[in-house]
């Protein structure tokens, strides 16, 4: 049971590093952005996990009976971060599209070859 308590954090670590692997090792720019999205999701998961309180419920007061509530603060941070995340990902995709138009490729090493010429 003790180990189950930190399973969420393990998932965070694995997810974070899976995304990071895509950013580091893959040469395709869209793939890198997908990796970045995974990385983001991992961070979101970490924050929300930390905000959970045992036996708590979402921090929205029900009509009757106050209960234990989970931490609202990480939720606020992540809520805005999700929308910011999609906008910045879109910006990245915009750059990739422009790179494709200029270089004719979205593979990193081909772009470097063209640059060195």
């Amino acid at each position, binding site marked *: 049971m003790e180990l189950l308590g930190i399973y969420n954090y393990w998932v965070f670590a694995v*997810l974070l590093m*899976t995304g990071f692997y895509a950013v580091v090792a893959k040469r395709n720019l869209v793939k890198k952005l997908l990796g970045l999205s995974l990385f983001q999701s991992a961070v979101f*998961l970490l924050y929300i996990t930390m905000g959970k309180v045992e036996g708590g419920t979402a921090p*929205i*007061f029900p009509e009757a009976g106050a209960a234990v509530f989970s931490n*609202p603060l990480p939720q606020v941070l992540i809520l805005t971060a999700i929308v910011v995340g999609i906008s910045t990902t879109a910006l990245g*995709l915009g750059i990739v599209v422009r790179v494709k138009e200029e270089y004719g490729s979205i593979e990193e090493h081909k772009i470097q070859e063209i640059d060195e010429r």
Partner: protein
Amino acid sequence: MIVMFGIFLLTLLVITAIAIVRTDNLFVAVMLMGIASLLIAANFFLLDAADVALTEAAVGAGISTVLFLGALALTSERERAKSWNRLLSFIVVAAAALILIYATFDKPRFGDPEAPVQVHVAPWYLEKTPEYIDIPNVVTAVLGSFRGYDTLGEVFVVFTAGIGVLFLLGGGKAGGAVPEEEIDEGLRHHLIPRVVGRVLIPFILLFGLYVQFHGEYGPGGGFQAGAIIAAAIILFALLEGENRALSVLPERVLLGLMACGPLLYGAVGLAGIIFGGNFLDYSVLSSNPVKGQQLGILLIEAGVGISVTGVLLGIFHAFAARDS
């Protein structure tokens, strides 16, 4: 039991993530990303974050898939090159993962009410929200009032990202081989999606407005509502073609929305100063401080919703306009 559900969903999520990295077909990777978004939203809900789950649903279900597919249509859907220094990267990443996992053993137990995160400001927010603002949704209260500066910053980041995309992709078209009117038909020849879409779009818009203005009482708020309304218009553009969507909401209007949202937010902040309070202090907006806070939150949420709608639609149109 619910903890076990969460663990099962997280395991599925890890499998999906690994599959995303391994596949060399980018289209498949985008589809798997949609699955990851569904799984993570379900997880957020299990972890008591209804507002966050709603945001992830609004963004992940429609918009992010549409944007990635738009980018794939403009680039390529195959990943041609093999990975770079695969072994070295794997060793580095695995080592970092092990270090992170080692660090988790010092973490407080999952759900521990005594954990350092839970004892500082959060109880204060939970305790003071009924007194100062008197709305049930603490998340909206913190987002709109207690941490209004943060949200203002985030809105400006979203605005900047939108402007960046317009700078990169707006203006001169790449020019394709397909005749304009043919590509612009959208799914007009597909009767079933068209009919269903026509029925549904008003409901999606209505639901977006409900989420916007019910955000003080249930899960919702400007960010979610903006994404949902943008999704409705994107659906219209998919069904009826780009140009019709643009004639409903012309580019000028979208730019106006993009700019008006942050401006409205900032103006509410300035109004606080004019009425003799601090920047973004809504208590002075009305004779009753609690009513003032509620009014301020309503206005800034409207600003957020307007700006998110404008930015997401602007980005979508920028991608779609290239695709011809």
